[in-house]
């Protein structure tokens, strides 16, 4: 396993998020370094997805801030966050179901391309070239996640595993520095999980830092360089998987006293 670059890519400081009387996130701080695979684990309702939504601009935190690649992104609109280099997938797969796989990935190129209405109407040289490069890149990405053959399939008709892969390809199309995956292995069988793990390692090998929410302990422990554990909106442990696994607090809160 490659040693992670020690420079911080994402620095989360004292994030707090409340929904009415419920505190979903309480004083959560963590640091993700460039090039690592960082796992976020915790029981259901611990606030993992809430943290994702804060980091991707869908929620504005009540207090605290986070800095990504040296820029304070707190309270920014989602499209600004994507522009800065954070892309995400969703727990309950949110593809553009009636578009083809290729079109889905082409939408992902939106943020890195510029053609406007006028260019489209006049079909200028620049627009046509850009459109071609969007299509080419989208095809490459489908091949990259090994669903190139499904390019023209309607995305809602893809198998579950392929839909997950497509969502990753679509997120990669935005050229992220940090790819945030919300339970990518959910609903996958053992073979698919193994393939997913290989894919994620390949993505990391190509210079993308990964943030991963996952319930599959085996996957997290095998894949992640470091993990943080959330419980009732608080970070109760952080560190290398082996160390966290033995943390008595974690054992009590999350793993229910017994380890696999």
């Amino acid at each position, binding site marked *: 396993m490659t040693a992670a670059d020690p420079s911080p890519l994402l620095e989360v400081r004292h994030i707090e998020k409340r929904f009415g009387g419920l505190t979903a996130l309480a004083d959560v701080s963590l640091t993700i370094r460039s090039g690592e695979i960082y796992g976020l684990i915790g029981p259901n309702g611990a606030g993992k997805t809430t943290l994702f939504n804060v980091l991707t601009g869908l929620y504005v935190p009540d207090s605290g801030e986070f800095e990504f690649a040296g820029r304070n992104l707190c309270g920014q609109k*989602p499209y600004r966050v994507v522009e800065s280099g954070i892309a995400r997938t969703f727990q309950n797969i949110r593809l*553009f*179901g*009636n*578009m083809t796989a290729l079109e889905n990935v082409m939408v992902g190129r939106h943020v890195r391309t510029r053609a406007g209405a006028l*260019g489209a*109407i006049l079909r200028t040289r620049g627009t046509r070239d850009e459109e071609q490069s969007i299509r080419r890149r989208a095809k490459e990405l489908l091949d990259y996640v090994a669903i190139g053959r499904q390019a023209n399939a309607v995305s809602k008709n893809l198998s579950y595993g392929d839909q997950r892969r497509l969502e990753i390809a679509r*997120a990669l199309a935005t050229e992220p520095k940090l790819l945030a995956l919300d339970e990518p292995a959910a609903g996958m069988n053992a073979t698919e999980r193994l393939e997913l793990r290989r894919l994620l390692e390949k993505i990391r090998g190509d210079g993308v830092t990964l943030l991963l929410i996952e319930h599959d302990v085996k996957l997290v422990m095998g894949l992640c360089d470091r993990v943080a554990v959330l419980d009732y909106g608080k970070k109760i442990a952080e560190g290398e998987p082996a160390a966290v696994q033995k943390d008595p607090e974690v054992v009590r809160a999350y793993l229910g006293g017994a380890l696999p």
Partner: protein
Amino acid sequence: MGGFTAELERLRKHRYAPWIGLACIVVALLVLPFVLASVGTAWVRITNLAILFALLSLGLNIVVGFAGLLDLGYIAFYAVGAYCYALLASPHFGLHLPFWVILPIGAAVACLFGVLLGAPTLKLRGDYLAIVTLGFGEIVRIFLNNLSQPVNITNGPQGVTLIDPFRIGPLNFSKTDIFAGLSFSGPIKYYYLLLIVLVVVIVINLRLQKSRLGRAWVAIREDEVAAQAMGINTRNVKLLAFAMGASFGGVAGGIFSATQGFISPESFVFVESIMVLSMVVLGGMGNIWGVILGAVLLSFVPELLRYTVEPAQKAVFGRMLIEPEVIRMLLFGLALVLMMLYRPAGLWPSKTRKREFEEADQE
């Protein structure tokens, strides 16, 4: 028989087949007004109105069909364009600007109104957006009805009369000219002009649909949160849909003003918005050709009824039992119910839209 179909199939696959087909359509469209004029000039006017509605439907198709924003007040932009033309080219203010100056102004003002409607409704979806747009359409009409006091701007319910026709140099669109032995009446000239505008609008629509922007619209319609997460600035992209749809409405309104020579707020009632929306839905949301089909059908069928129902009833019953207008609404309702039952995606839907009504292949 078998040999004939095989021959037909071979012709269909021929390299030049699409071009020959296109040439046939072009010739048919060029000859059409003269054929119609021989039946009656009224039919040329009806055709012109059908093309105007096709323009409106194509504009609304951007908002509803592509971006999925239900707009029930679209006729307001038509009204804005029409009044822009009427006020800048009539004795009402004594202004007589040429049409090629006013049409861009009309488009720009309608575009501004589009943004005006779009900006406060960005966060609304579905039913809520529909209610606000409905209100907007009514507000514009009521303003037009009442802006005769304290300063007379719109001349209130009486409307604006004596609106200038289009003029290109010596060519006056309200007079009949004889070219090469053919009599070009006013409506026929407008027909050709409308045809050119329609072709331009179709090309713009087709190009937008296949562009980065077109994809962003469809993405927003499919899943707005995911679209945001893909880096689409949903605010700007939605506003652009409203603005572009509105400006098409504005241009159509300007031409409407010129062809009629008279407009009043009566022409821009809520039912007209519903009519245009029905054309889009009936034809097939999101598909340019479907939308045009819807506009042509809903413009022509009522007129055909008007000309057939009355004689038919007189022949059968000896007198009129049901007014053509009543039958029109009955058939219209029946058509919509049948559509919802048998072709919910429209007569000629877009591929993406059609898929929405199909279950996913898997569980």
